[in-house]
């Protein structure tokens, strides 16, 4: 089974990396970009074949390791079983 976890900073949390990238893009004349938010992405391969069990496991993993609930949100997506 293949799955994907997206981890992004919560809306109200300051994203210094995103801000710096926007400034850089403007210096490179990509003036149309108004905002950039930077985040992390993880592709996982699991031995698990049962979809619900896999989802439950990934929910825990995301909460404990991939994301820091205090400042980050996460999205889980099963790509193929």
């Amino acid at each position, binding site marked *: 089974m293949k799955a994907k976890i997206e981890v992004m900073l*919560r809306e*109200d*949390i*300051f*994203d*210094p990396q995103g*801000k*710096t990238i926007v*400034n850089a893009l403007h210096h490179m004349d990509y003036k149309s970009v108004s905002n950039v938010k930077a985040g992390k992405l993880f592709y996982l391969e699991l031995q698990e074949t049962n979809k619900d069990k896999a989802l439950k496991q990934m929910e825990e993993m995301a909460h404990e390791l991939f994301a*820091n609930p*205090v*400042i980050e949100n996460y999205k889980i997506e099963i790509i193929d079983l």
Partner: protein
Amino acid sequence: MTEKKAIELSGLSPAEIDLARKKLGRNLSVEEIGMFGALWSEHCGYKNTKPLIKKLPVTGKHLLQGPGENAGVVSVDDYAIAFKIESHNHPSAVEPYEGAATGVGGILRDVFAMGARPIAVLDSLRFGKRDSARTRFLVGGIINGISDYGNRVGIPTVAGEVVFEDQYEGNPLVNVMCVGIAKKDKIIKATAKGKGNLLFYYGSKTGRDGLGGATFASAELSSEGEDKRPSVQVGDAFTEKLILEATLELLEKKLVIGIQDMGAAGITSSSVEMAGRGNSGIEIDIDQIPARAANMSAYEFLLSESQERMLACIEPSRLEACMEVMKKWELDCAVIGRVTDSQNVVVKENGKVLADIPTRFLLDEVPFYEREVKRPAYLEKAASIPPYHLNKTNNEMLKDLLSDVNIASKKWVYERYDHMVQTNLLAQPCAAGGALLRIKGTSKAIAMATDGNGRYTYLNPSVGGMQAVAEVARNLACMGAETYGITNCLNFGNPEKSEVYYQLAKAMEGMGKACKALNVPITGGNASLYNETDGEPILPTITVGAVGIVDNYKKAVTAAFQKEGHLVGLLGINKEEIGGSLYLEKACGKIAGKCPSLDMELEVRLQRLIRELISKSFIASAQDVSDGGLSVALCESAILSGKGVSIRMEE
């Protein structure tokens, strides 16, 4: 934001609210409640520690600036050395990476706001149970936070401590010290004065970071639903590096009257404290504050703890030049208010007055509390050593001590810090009890170290307070340096509990006594109280940071043995004192016994002797006997030098 919610968030007691109402003769606006909450918090107002702080020695022959400014300053020749230690315990318990990173950012700004270029960071870290998942989580986050932030700004982390004791499990201690250097005539005070002068804001835009930070810094954490603030303060080390260079450029060009960083309680504390020092009034215009988040309220602007922001007081004629500097360093800036002669702090939003409070009342009349003192019941029981059976040989016990994480090499920590940048550090961080940094272009070097001992202070608060000062000064003396100044970080439980207040009062008394004996002034520091989880306080811990000078660093020594055939001697008296030792803790599983005694008169002579022996090159290395005792001290010197050592006990 209702008045009731503001009062709840402010952490002010009903009595304190009434005091403010009586003084102003009217009800408080939501913004005013927030401002009182911030400035009358423990963090900014020292309301539980002020009476005790007053008794500390604050004068010394090398002192240039004592407590009351952003950082303390001592001087050598025409150089000024600014330094201070601060705690970021609560934010680091909630979010270790950002908590530690913003802790570094804040203390750096305190130093360069004085006009000094930061040249070193020291991190004094205390964690809980050695093998708990929570400790592993905190250790990883906190060390990463300090490493990423310090490395990015280009300030070397050169020394510090990493200590593991079960009593810190719910409340890690993250005390960060910064040392900076400037020519004496470049040192600047954080004042706002001169009617019509401008309040010039520069650095990052303001968002809703860490709202409630100042009041939160002294709030007790409960372990079930950790009291997570809605938005944690996030650090941007890149912008910090820009405001550092921009600030030093403003000072180089003599463009400002005073500067302060926006630390806890952001715009409120910086503007009011600057006005207080200049004995003037100020008027702040909320509409001018550069905003990062949409439709923020005045309350949020006033209390936001967005990082990497500075406030300067400048003459209108300098505005153009200041904006030019900010343009070069690509930093946001704006005039957000001006100095008035009204002796009041006035806050306006599109013309409407939201706050109007006498500056002196906000700063000088912080209600402070002499709490009731009660000798802790545990002291009797802890003083007696429980019977224990040591089923290990001496060798096995020594190996146990040497492999204990509190003793073993800290290379796994400092190799994550760029401790070499700025090319001033003269020896590897492990080579001595502290760090020695050369002053380029001179023969002199600055010695620096941090020390603290929660176990001793737990067993005997006043002697524990003395030991912390004596040990940090001893570490400097063992490099050949005389201590010029001391800064301190008070990490204690809830002061409203009389047993905790006993620990606090006695430890500070001991610290003051040791400083007087050493003739070394306390130049400032900070207090972090309410370090408790579910009613269990941490070990009472004063972290002391010291700076000193070695006149000729070519003669300085480290702890490593130098040559075969050298004789090894012990200075001072070796007494049968294993109370509070790591050895005893391992043997009987808890902190017990009488805290080792400390004769300050002998200590002062001993340190003077060590310094003289080093300056005359009579000795090749020196090491203080501390954690793990004499056997560990000998092993450390041997391991550092790759040589062996043989000792005859009977001498």
